[in-house]
């Protein structure tokens, strides 16, 4: 079973590249049992949303 450090690595890399099937399954399994990493997944998504807003031309 992967640990939280590895799981957050994959969460981050999932924003950069397509994860392999094995990586996706391992991550899914970890997220099922780990609340901290589930929260991290949403946090990372939010960081991306917020950062993109800064670069958007809307006033």
């Amino acid at each position, binding site marked *: 079973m992967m640990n939280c450090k590895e799981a957050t*690595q994959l969460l981050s890399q999932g924003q950069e590249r397509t994860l392999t099937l094995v990586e996706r399954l391992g991550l899914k399994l970890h997220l099922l049992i780990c609340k901290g990493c589930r929260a991290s997944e*949403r946090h990372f998504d939010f960081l991306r949303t*917020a950062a*993109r807003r*800064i*670069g958007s031309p809307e006033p």
Partner: protein
Amino acid sequence: MKTDELQRVFAAMRSQMLRFARLQLRSEAAAEDAVQEALLAAHMAADQFAGASSVRTWVFSILKNKIIDELRRRVREGNVMDFAAAEDEMKDIDELFDQRGHWAAPPMAWPDPEAALDNQQFWVVFEACLDGVPPKHGRIFMMREILGLETEEICKELAISPSNCWVLLHRARLGLRECLSQRWFGEQK
């Protein structure tokens, strides 16, 4: 668009553009230059714009390109930190996990994060966090997420491997999350 109309749109955008450029370039003078050049370019293309929103979109994409050019120039001139040597900045991230790689203190879900996006004060904190993480992390995160460069381009620009790039982005995201948890979402540890 008419010139006076265009001037009004420019005036309204200027401070947002300056903030944006300052955050990326870390230099008041370089930010001023980039904004000035972008506005000048837009000025010369004034006939093409149908309305304020098309001007904004256009000027912002010019500004992003100016910033990217300036960052490239700095890399070329060696006037940039050494991205390959990131080891020194790993300590604070390692403290988040125990020896087995599990959370030392698991992060909590944020209450209603979307609401923060409409809060002026949130953006002040967000920018402070971008400034507060180690400079390499902040720089690479902004290149990726704010300037919208692809990871491959960033690797090439900074002469680092993709895996190195991923490591830095991972650390940047963890650092920013910690900062926002503490300074905005009020997570108690």
